[in-house]
């Protein structure tokens, strides 16, 4: 059942249920919802609010909820005190690269697992899934040694390969479910219609899998964008940092953590991800909840 059905008044059954609630019950329900919303939204608000405060106001006690004289100076200062552009570009290269690689590999793999009779298909699926269960910390060291031999440390490609390894299993699993929800009939109709197999995949299956692929791509992009541990270990030179590592090492211009500037760049770092969600929200929700709709 969708979340929508639990919301009062959205459809008939939910409407009837909410009509049964007494005034107190409804009050409690909204109070609980409000509390949860506050818990989720407040940290973000605090981030925004802090980023707009002057240096003195940040350290004030008790802290102010609304900045006395909001200004964008922390943003300007922060941007002047780090290699943000490089880090930003690095992050985009690595995230986009990982996304393309993962989707390119995971889509045919998931399709094959879902549709072809492959001996041991279940075992493969379990193996892919099991990559999600290994703590990533355990993988850092052996991979680092191996990548060092290949000269992949401190390169975009090295980090892209790491992320592909971390997220392909997840993408396969997600797309596998999506392919399973596609009716078999369409491929059968195409096959019987004399359409060659590659064309069935590229022209019939792929266009219908777009929401699923988009969902997988967004997940992988966001995971890569936020990833910290591998980026920290594999990117050793400051100019090669990704945003997440850059943020962690950012101390501002006076050598100590400057909270308002840190919050300012954090917001800048989050904006691309938020934009991505805003643009693809509809498709994304369809992709994770509905699967294919006939």
């Amino acid at each position, binding site marked *: 059942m969708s979340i929508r059905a639990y919301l009062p008044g959205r459809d008939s059954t939910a409407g009837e249920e909410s009509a049964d609630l007494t005034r107190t019950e409804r009050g409690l329900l909204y109070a609980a919802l409000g509390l949860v919303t506050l818990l989720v939204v407040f940290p973000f608000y605090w981030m925004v609010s802090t980023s707009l405060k002057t240096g003195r106001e940040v350290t004030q006690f008790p802290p102010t909820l609304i900045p006395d004289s909001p200004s964008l100076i922390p943003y300007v200062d922060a941007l002047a005190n780090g290699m943000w552009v490089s880090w930003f570009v690095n992050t985009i290269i690595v995230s986009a690269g990982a996304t393309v690689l993962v989707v390119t590999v995971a889509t045919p793999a998931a399709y094959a697992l879902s549709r072809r009779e492959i001996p041991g298909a279940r075992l493969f699926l379990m193996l892919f899934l099991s990559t999600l269960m290994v703590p990533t910390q355990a993988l850092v060291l052996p991979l680092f040694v191996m990548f060092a031999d290949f000269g992949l440390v401190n390169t975009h490609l090295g980090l892209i390969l790491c992320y592909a390894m971390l997220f392909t299993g997840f993408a396969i699993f997600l797309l596998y479910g999506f392919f399973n929800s596609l*009716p078999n*009939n*369409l491929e*059968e*109709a*195409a*096959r*019987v*219609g*004399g*359409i*060659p*197999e590659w*064309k069935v995949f590229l*022209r*019939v299956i792929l*266009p*219908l899998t777009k929401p699923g692929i988009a969902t997988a791509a967004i997940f992988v992009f966001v995971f890569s964008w936020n990833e910290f541990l591998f980026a920290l270990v594999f990117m050793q030179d400051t100019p090669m940092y990704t945003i997440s590592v850059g943020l962690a090492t950012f101390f501002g211009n006076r050598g100590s953590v400057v909270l308002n500037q840190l919050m300012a760049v954090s917001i800048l770092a989050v904006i691309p991800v938020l934009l991505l969600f805003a643009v693809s929200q509809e498709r994304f929700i369809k992709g994770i909840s509905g699967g294919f709709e*006939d």
Partner: protein
Amino acid sequence: MEVELKDLTKKFDDLVAVNGVSLTVKDGEFLTLVGPSGCGKSTILRCITGLEVPTSGQILFDGEDVTDQQPQERGIAMVFQNYALYPHMTARRNMSFALEDSGHSKAEIESRISETAEMLGIGDHLDQTPEELSGGQKQRVALGRSLVRNPDIILMDEPLSNLDAKLRIELRAELQKIHQELETTTVYVTHDQEEAMTMSDRIVVLNDGEIQQVSSPEAAYNRPKNRFVADFIGSPGMNFLPCRLEGETITAGPFSFGLPDGAEGTPTELGIRPEDISLSAGDDGDSPVGEVNVFEHIGPYNIVYLEVADVGEIVAQIPASRYFDIGESVSISVRNDRIHLFDQAGRTIYNPPLPSDADAERPTTSR
């Protein structure tokens, strides 16, 4: 093109879906596979398409063994119950998609599509996507998608089952018309015996993965080979009464009949078609009596469900002009020469002569 199945068997793990089916579909014939769900009819069809690989047996197209060929290689077309139109393409693209890489010129594809669309009455809907089409239009597009390719064989898997009753009958007639025009070998699968009866040159009645009877629709109706066919074909279905043979007399509850000439073996069950029963009001003191349980107005005729002592419920089909009240007692009469007899194993041991007394096979049509 002629299709021949040789001892076709398909197993899904332990389940035998099709068991040793041998069958020849003549060139240009409209053959229907009919049977209850799970009888293996769709599996046979899917084996012909190549979407399923038979466990054993052979499939021949005009004598050529295609058993191991991919669906793409077989030169066939299939129409699905749920249309299976490509949802992201317009009706036109759905129809042209398979032709695009087959070396036909754009103009030729265009003209074939408009010709086919004209024939199917979907000319105005070619630029719509499946989502915008009604069920009947969708199935017409799907049919068009099959026909534009000039396939050697058309396979149809319950193509009308998702449509409402009126449209079903309309399309049924259209399909027949198209078949008469194109004379493409057609194998049609349905669970609806009425569809099978109305459309086919020959029907194949299946049960539990085995062929029960291959014959003209008339023969399956009038001369069923066994109890299953007798029961499956015809609506409302045949009445079955357990019976005993004593000397030359067959007794089933209050009914008794003389053993007809030509009956071989011991009848244990007696079959009577509902239309072979006539009813008269009241107890005439002579005939078996039943009590009216249910009375249905169909239009051209009425259906009466009767409760008869010792044999249970009997269904009769009577003229629309006759009317009986619920609970009314009626006298039942059945002509001695209209009964079917079955033995212990369910085999037919006697079928009445055809009303016209002609041969059971339909006179061969023009082909």
